């Protein structure tokens, strides 16, 4: 029984198609020039493909079922529903990204981010997406429109397939269409936005496939066996044990031990891959922007009120902070002097180590943690050693910090946007973005009261901090312009 007139579906499809195209157009008008161009082109291409798919199908059906109007109506309705669901998914999944993009920070940090990513890959488009969920995230779509259209092709007849393939070949889009989500509450904080370096590192990892060089890793045997035993003896609830009498049904009885082992192996490796990717991004980010990345994460975890426990997607916060500090100390040369920044980092070491030791692990997390702890020892073949070469040319080591940050910090401390600094030849040259961010964090962590003391009048504390962030944003924007101009 059909409660909806079959002809309605095709009509509704036309309406939805029209409104979707109009929405994309309207959202595009609200964006700065050249923003999300490739993404919008891809969206339009997918919408065209859905239209082409349905129209071709309808034409074919009309030819094939001319003598059977009832079957024809039913088939058209069926295919219209498929197309409507695809349009619905586009509406739900992609348009909010475009809408959010129009809300991004007014300072133009994008050019600096773009330049950083170009060191690793050229074929990408990056869109910054302010989000109301307090989280930073990276979403990368490789061959975005092509993949979606190929899905349609897989469900098409020969004629439609070639028409879709021709449409797909009409526009060459960048290989990576990527979105960096950040909390809208952080849009005016250059200090907090340093977490974006970690998300950008995910893009670098995706583009250069570092994670593939690290995986597979052999799971820690003893903790894995413990997990398998525990799972085998786990009572199977959830409707499976309807009977109250008789022996308790366990996973082993249902799936057999090899079956349970196979499931545990899969789930552990899923968690392991996610954690490894997070660690790769953490290590790349700490090399790329130095202590600023550690400080930003420290505050981010605090802001989130994050418990020191791992999840299926991320290692425990304290363990991640410890890895960052260890990398700063052992590989990048920090914490070897009595400078203000080294003192702050050195002071953090025991606290973070205690947090990392206190983190509780169970089930898959326990196996993965043990597997990782076994690997990042001091031997040169560990997986951290495979990550470092990717970033070694751009690592912001302690020596670079010592050369670049003090001049920038001096200006910042006096309330001056550190756009340019005197270089070794005695000329003014643009300050590096990494030095600007680190100077901001050093000031914040070591002498923020001194900075607040520069203000006259009754300016609230948070307004003073906002001023520091304004100075940092201004310096990032203007130094980037100066760099490109020269």
């Amino acid at each position, binding site marked *: 029984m059909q409660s909806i007139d079959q002809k309605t579906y095709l009509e509704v499809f036309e309406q939805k198609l029209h409104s979707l195209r109009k929405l994309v157009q309207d959202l595009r008008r609200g964006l*700065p*020039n050249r923003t999300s161009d490739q993404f919008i082109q891809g969206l339009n291409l997918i919408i065209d493909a859905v239209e082409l798919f349905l129209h071709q199908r309808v034409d074919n059906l009309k030819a094939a079922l001319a003598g059977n109007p009832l079957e024809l109506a039913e088939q058209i309705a069926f295919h219209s529903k498929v197309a409507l669901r695809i349009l619905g998914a586009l509406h739900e999944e992609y348009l909010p990204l475009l809408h959010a993009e129009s809300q991004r920070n*007014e*300072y*133009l940090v994008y050019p600096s981010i773009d330049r950083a990513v170009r060191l690793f890959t050229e074929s990408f488009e990056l869109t910054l997406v302010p989000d109301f969920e307090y989280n930073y995230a990276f979403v990368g779509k490789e061959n975005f429109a092509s993949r979606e259209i190929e899905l349609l092709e897989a469900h098409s007849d020969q004629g439609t397939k070639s028409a879709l393939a021709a449409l797909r070949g009409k526009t060459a889009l960048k290989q990576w269409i990527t979105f960096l989500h950040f909390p809208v509450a952080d849009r005016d904080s250059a200090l907090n936005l340093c977490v974006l370096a970690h998300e950008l590192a995910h893009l670098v990892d995706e583009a250069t496939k570092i994670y593939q060089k690290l995986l597979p890793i052999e799971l820690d045997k003893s903790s894995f066996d413990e997990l398998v035993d525990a799972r085998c003896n786990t009572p199977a609830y959830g409707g499976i044990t309807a009977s109250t009498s008789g022996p308790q049904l366990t996973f082993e009885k249902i799936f057999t031990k090899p079956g349970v082992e196979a499931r545990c192996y899969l789930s552990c490796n899923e968690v392991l891959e996610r954690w490894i990717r997070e660690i790769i991004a953490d290590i790349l980010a700490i090399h790329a922007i130095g202590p600023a990345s550690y400080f930003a994460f420290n505050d981010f975890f605090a802001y989130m009120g994050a418990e020191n426990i791992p999840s299926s997607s991320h290692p425990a916060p304290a363990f991640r902070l410890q890895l960052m500090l260890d990398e700063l100390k052992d590989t990048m040369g920090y914490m070897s002097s009595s400078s203000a920044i080294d003192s702050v980092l050195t002071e953090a070491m025991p606290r973070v180590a205690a947090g990392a030791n206190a983190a509780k692990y169970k089930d898959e997390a326990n196996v993965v943690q043990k597997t990782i702890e076994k690997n990042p020892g001091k031997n040169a073949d560990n997986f951290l050693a495979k990550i470092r070469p990717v970033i070694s040319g751009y690592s912001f080591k302690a020596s670079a910090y010592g050369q670049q940050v003090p001049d920038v910090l001096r*200006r910042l401390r*006096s*309330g*001056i*946007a550190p*756009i*340019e600094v*005197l270089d070794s030849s*005695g000329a*003014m040259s*643009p300050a590096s973005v990494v030095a600007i961010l680190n100077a901001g964090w050093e000031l914040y962590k070591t002498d923020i009261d001194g900075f607040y003391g*520069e*203000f*006259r*009048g009754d*300016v609230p504390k948070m307004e*003073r901090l906002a*001023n520091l962030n304004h*100075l940092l944003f*201004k*310096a990032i*924007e*203007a*130094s980037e*312009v*100066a760099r490109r*101009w*020269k």
Partner: protein
Amino acid sequence: MSADQSMPVSESLTSAAVLSKETLLRRLKEDLIVSPILEPSQIGDGSVDISLGTRFIRSRRAKATEINFRELDKEKIRSFQESVVVPFGEHYILHSRSFVLGCTFEFIALPLDVCGFVLADRPMAEQGFLSQLRRLSTRVGGAA
């Protein structure tokens, strides 16, 4: 721009002099901040050419039916203003009979013995361009 480094500030004000190009170049490396300088030609005798920044504040007329100047405070002013960002190198089109607040692209901070004016060049001034220095509540400099 004028200054006399050898005298206390109060005395130097009475014997002020326009900074030569040479002095400007030297002071820009020391304590006078006009940054960034994109082209050397921006610096002349007694002047530094500066440009409009990327941020503008414009009024949303549809948000205010009337303005009562006696009751006007910061919050009320902001309620009918909006911020616009124009990426560097792109255009902001200011239509006739409209008003927009802009700021300089350069960050400006002057040492105590230097004073200066932000002036519109003649063609812009003839079109009604006004410039005004904004005093901030901090030592943080900047022209608005």
